[in-house]
């Protein structure tokens, strides 16, 4: 997001509502911005004022045994993580800070940005996505009206599930002021089983087998070319839980990989660092355009085959269901390869010139695109939030 200098920073919901209503009156577009960690995603924005949401930060309610946390949308993700960790809890969908993907310092990402972008890390495979953990919210629509969606308890089906719509809406429906999240206990122990030297198809089969086993694998990833392992591949299976359980489940995993080249498992800090690097596709470097492809896991190898990628160009997370690809070639070819595999490709990082021409989000089929448009107009009839970024 690149915007002009004009910026408005409300600190109360009624001020926010006034700011949006006033933008509507003066035919001005607003680019909603939290910490700015994802500014470099999407088409550069010029013709919009910045709606600075950082005034809506702070913890509103947290009662650990209720498994519910309510915070201001601009509360930094790192503060949320630290607060939950202090009570032995966590956001199970493992949201991460996009800053480092773009060479920015970590720490800017906000929880509202995490929700607006639907950010989830490696454990999304077993624990669900951001959408599965947003229980409720407060927001101001493009009509300049304050409204709420969902509730503040872990089980609720009252009315439409607007929290799902807000998650991943990239600031195109409403400006979030407050979010209520389901939180879960942090596992007391974690352990990553490692296998070296598998080809991609064999790694995908192993991960599918592990996910179909009773070992309750939390995350599964494959790195086709690992610098740390002299350029060999590494396949990683994460187990987390109570010690007695981990030991028993570790044996189930070992039984699946006994013929392979087993490496020493990783624990504690090493384990956490490995999965953090996986979340931000660190091993693909920052020099090349970065794509994120969601695909049925069993077909994940097809994209690299179609584009004739080298092992160094791709990473497989979510047991293959998420493929990160560093690729300098044609975006049309990339999207065709993703579609042929039954998936879709999001352009996460690219030089400005490429972002001007290539939409970040995978294009929708016409019927769905038209319906999405109607839903966006239901929240933002005048298109106040349509900055052209997506």
């Amino acid at each position, binding site marked *: 997001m690149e915007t002009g200098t004009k910026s408005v920073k409300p600190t109360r919901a009624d001020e926010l509502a006034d700011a949006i209503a006033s933008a509507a009156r003066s035919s001005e577009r607003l680019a909603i911005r939290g910490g700015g960690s994802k500014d470099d995603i999407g088409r550069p924005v010029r013709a919009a004022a910045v709606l600075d949401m950082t005034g809506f930060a702070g913890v509103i309610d947290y009662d650990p045994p209720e498994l519910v946390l309510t915070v201001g949308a601009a509360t930094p993700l790192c503060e949320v993580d630290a607060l939950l960790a202090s009570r032995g809890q966590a956001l199970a969908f493992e949201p991460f800070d996009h800053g480092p993907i773009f060479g920015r310092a970590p720490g800017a990402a906000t929880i509202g940005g995490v929700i607006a972008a639907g950010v989830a890390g490696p454990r999304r495979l077993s624990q669900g996505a951001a959408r599965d953990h947003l229980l409720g919210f407060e927001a101001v629509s493009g009509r300049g009206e304050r409204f709420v969606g969902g509730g503040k308890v872990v089980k609720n089906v009252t009315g439409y599930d607007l929290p799902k719509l807000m998650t991943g809406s990239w600031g195109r429906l409403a400006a979030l002021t407050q979010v209520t999240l389901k939180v879960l*206990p942090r596992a007391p122990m974690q352990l990553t089983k490692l296998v070296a030297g598998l080809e991609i198809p064999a790694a995908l089969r192993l991960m599918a087998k592990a996910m*179909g086993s009773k070992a309750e694998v939390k995350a599964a990833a494959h790195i086709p070319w690992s610098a740390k392992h002299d350029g060999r591949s590494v396949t990683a299976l994460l187990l987390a839980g109570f010690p007695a*359980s981990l030991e028993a489940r570790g044996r189930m995993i070992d039984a699946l990989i006994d013929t392979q080249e087993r490496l020493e498992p990783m624990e504690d800090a090493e384990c956490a660092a490995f999965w953090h690097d996986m979340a931000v596709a660190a091993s693909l470097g920052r020099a090349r355009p970065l794509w994120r492809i969601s695909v049925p896991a069993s077909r994940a190898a097809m994209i690299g085959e179609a584009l004739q990628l080298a092992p160094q160009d791709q990473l497989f997370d979510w047991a293959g*269901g998420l493929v990160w690809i560093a690729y300098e070639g044609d975006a049309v070819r990339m999207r065709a390869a993703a579609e042929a595999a039954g998936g879709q490709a999001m352009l996460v990082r690219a030089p400005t010139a490429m972002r001007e021409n290539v939409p970040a989000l995978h294009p929708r089929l016409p019927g769905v695109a038209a319906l999405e448009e109607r839903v966006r107009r239901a929240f933002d009839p005048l298109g106040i939030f349509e900055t052209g970024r997506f």
Partner: protein
Amino acid sequence: MPILMPEPDSHVLARRSEIVSALRTIVPGEGVVDHPDGLKPYETDAFTAYRQPPMVVVLPETTRQVAAVLRWCHDNAVKVVPRGSGTSLSGGALPLADAVLMGMAKFNRILEIDYDDRFAVVQPGVTNLAVSQAVEDRGFYYAPDPSSQIACSIGGNVAENAGGVHCLKYGLTTNNVLGVELVLMSGEIIRLGGRHLDCGGLDLLGVVVGSEGLLGVVTEVTVRILPRPETARALLIGFATIGGAAQCVADVIAAGIIPAGMELMDRPAVHAAEAFVKVGYPLDVDALLIVELDGCAAECEDLIAQVEGIARANGAVSVRISHNEEERLAFWAGRKAAFPAAGRLAADFYCMDGTIPRRRLPDVLQEIRALSERYGLGVINVFHAGDGNLHPLILYDANVPGELERAEAFGSDILRLCVRVGGVLTGEHGVGIEKRDLMPEMFGEDDLKQQERVKCAFDPAQLLNPGKVFPTLHRCAELGRMHVHGGKLPFPDLPRF
């Protein structure tokens, strides 16, 4: 106050035979039912206090037929009420006198099972349990397990975002559905989600799940399947006070344990269930808690010891631990029989479904007892304690004049109480018609209008399942209106629908 449905449109009623003929050109043979005897089975769902025979029933067999019926009804301004197995407890499938009832029972095939990517593609009329049965020989199952699972359909589960006793750990329907094929009221067929985890764009799938048949008719569902846990064990714990049981639940979660299920029954529920199934429930307790743990055997063994310690620290007066499947199922037998047991205590019972913050449980139960005395109607309480979902069963006799109305008023007071303590009107049964008029207790006018605008994006003529969920029907044109300075819309380049 009785729940009023929208006034039937006499022009539509006058065209009934024309409508029946038109439907017969789309769905041949016995797929269109118009004889009064044939309509009778469709006049209510499991919210049986309200009955209304539909104008006509159509039972399509293909997505094309669904699309053609909806398109014809759309073009002819005829309302449509979709129906799965008719097990809704909130009246979601209650027919309208001037509407076509679209039954989806013939969509009963499992289309594809993929064990590598762990999903099943099923038609919406397949029952919830049938999905688990289809994959059980490979050690898999479908996690959401509403108590009606032998009868309720996956399409209905999607419409209602059905839950079950294992929600805290495994989620509701919405957390276990990957994609749907959906027919809009216009007859347009679209696909939302897919066979992969994240789809980018707006999460339209997320808002369709739980939309109670107001946004579209689902014709195919892709659900996640999971490997069945190695084992499951349960504890049956008696407490002298509700407060002790509630604290035990909070402490289990605070210890980092997420049980597969945690169910609480109050004293009247325990007595009713024991009298019915005689499984040896302790009768000298004020609260009985079932805690089920699943996973690998070593984990269950470890956690059972931890939960037992927590229970004793909170004054448990009795603790039993299952050592085999037979014992585990016996612990559950009473809880699962709570509804029929209530049926023996009174001619009728009315099942409520609010969710509350768990910490408020002791006060809420006390207040429900007070309400019970005030209304002169008995109540027994069963409770999904892990996720705060209350199911008070109000006992009444519909043949006694005024009792149904008293039961409804009592129920409404319970739901108002749930909202007042920070909870919600419904945890898993849906709003339907039952809680429709209570929606303003939880949502303000602008909140409800914003939800209705989403409805308008899917069904601008508001022909699909009208009269459900929203207490007041606004016309979409009225909802879309926005006061704009000088009467001019900004951004003329934007497409508008």
